[in-house]
């Protein structure tokens, strides 16, 4: 029966040529193969976000007067609304976590080196966009925490010299965070960012298919020495089936989180109220936030916050261009980049914990 359907499609799509590369695609098998899963999991979680996001669109109302109440409506009156919304919120956080894990694993496995520099660049841009998703989506329930987190976050953007203020006004839809900001963020979240992400994912996946999976240099060296040790697995169906197992585990985790720890609603935002004490951004921005907090208010003659924001921007740009600093295979990867990678991981993890614990 399935064979008949495939034949019908093949006659109309000429599937053979399309599927051929997939039939031959292989995945290297070694002790670090499990890290290859993270890209797929991130993609899967993005799919979950799209589906739950579209479902939320059926009931969500973007506007300062209705947003909070509509989310409350989804959580209380809509059947399984609590499930869809909690999955959406949890999956967002999980996706950012797996995206970071994916990035760091690529970094440590040296998979960004030539010819895969553009895969890295498109991936980093995707990471920035995903964090943009997180930032814009966080405001949509229009509760107190989200309102003030957005206020603080967009104010940071305003610190950039010359272009900062116009950028901030563009993001906020005005000089202050208001209902206009909410509508704008909603537009970014459901139209602009998805469009950009789809394009970049297509490029990213196309490059991965085209260039194949990279093998970490040390393991590659071992295999060159001992060619019989080289092992590979067919992508379809072997690796695919394993990925599906991982995806099912992810669904289970999401369901458990949504049922046992439903995402809370908070209190409706009051633009004229005062910010709650100890306001902090979501965990994935904590390392940047904490960095800005520890920079002294004046460094030499430069304002500390401006320095921090520009510094973050510069680090982001250099990180984007990282592959162009490393050596080309088959030369050994530069050791200082490995050291930098370890430092980056420690820094992000450490500053996040520090930011979480700090008052």
């Amino acid at each position, binding site marked *: 029966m399935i064979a008949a359907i495939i034949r019908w499609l093949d006659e109309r799509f000429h599937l053979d040529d399309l599927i051929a590369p997939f039939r031959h695609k292989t995945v290297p098998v070694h002790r670090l193969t499990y890290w290859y899963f993270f890209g797929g999991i991130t993609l899967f979680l993005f799919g979950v976000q799209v*589906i739950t996001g579209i479902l939320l669109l059926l009931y969500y*109302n973007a506007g300062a007067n209705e947003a909070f*109440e509509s989310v409350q409506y989804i959580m209380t009156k*809509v*059947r*399984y609304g609590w*499930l869809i919304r909690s999955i959406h919120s949890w999956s967002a956080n999980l996706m950012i976590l797996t995206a970071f894990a994916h990035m760091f694993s690529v970094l440590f496995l040296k998979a960004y080196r030539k010819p895969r520099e553009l895969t890295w660049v498109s991936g980093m841009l995707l990471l920035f966009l995903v964090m943009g998703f997180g930032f814009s989506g966080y405001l949509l329930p229009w509760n107190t925490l989200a309102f003030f987190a957005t206020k603080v976050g967009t104010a940071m953007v305003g610190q950039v010299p010359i272009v900062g203020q116009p950028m901030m006004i563009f993001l906020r839809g005005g000089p202050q965070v208001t209902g206009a900001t909410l509508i704008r963020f909603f537009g970014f979240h459901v139209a602009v960012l998805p469009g950009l992400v789809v394009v970049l994912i297509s490029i990213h996946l196309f490059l991965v298919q085209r260039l194949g999976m990279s093998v970490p240099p040390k393991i590659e060296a071992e295999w060159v020495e001992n060619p019989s040790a080289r092992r590979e697995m067919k992508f379809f169906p072997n690796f695919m089936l394993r990925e599906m197992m991982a995806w099912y585990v992810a*669904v289970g985790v999401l369901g458990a989180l949504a049922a046992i720890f439903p995402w809370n609603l908070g209190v409706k935002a009051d633009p004229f109220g005062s910010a709650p004490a100890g306001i902090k951004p979501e965990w994935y921005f904590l390392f940047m936030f904490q960095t800005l907090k520890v920079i002294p208010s004046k460094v030499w003659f430069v304002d500390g916050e401006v320095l921090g924001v520009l510094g973050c921007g510069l680090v982001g740009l250099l990180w984007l261009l990282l592959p162009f600093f490393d050596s080309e295979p088959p030369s050994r990867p530069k050791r200082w980049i490995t050291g930098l990678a370890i430092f980056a991981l420690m820094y992000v993890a450490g500053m996040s914990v520090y930011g979480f614990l700090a008052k």
Partner: protein
Amino acid sequence: MSGEQNIVAGSTRRRAIEYFLGGGILATFASFLYPILRYMVPPPVADLGVNEVVAGKVGDLKPNSGAIFRFGSSPGLLILTSDGTYQALSATCTHLGCTVQYRGDLHQVWCPCHNGIYGIDGRNISGPPPKPLTAYDVHLRGDEIVVTHKREA
């Protein structure tokens, strides 16, 4: 083991796998699709009741009387005056938060907690209340009395 037993064992195992896989796919997709399908069916209460609410029907109120209705998450007071006009106000007293009521004998809104008095337009007239009551817009839609927040000018 003999060849025959191998084949039998193999087909039993294959069937077990098929059951697991088929059953698993069915069960998981059912447990995913069921909530999604139920979600898509709109609940009976379609409105949020935040921006506008049906406070009552024409004929519910007698002239020169008032009734409490729910507006969003706080109470509202609907008044039908002696000359037949409807007025809707927030029913939370601006002094210490008690629920006010309409006094037909005074033709005024009264708070029983500390004797605060407001006019029908919500203005605080005497007693402790420091601020007027928020006034809402009232429209008649058929025989429904619809209360909405005041339009910004």
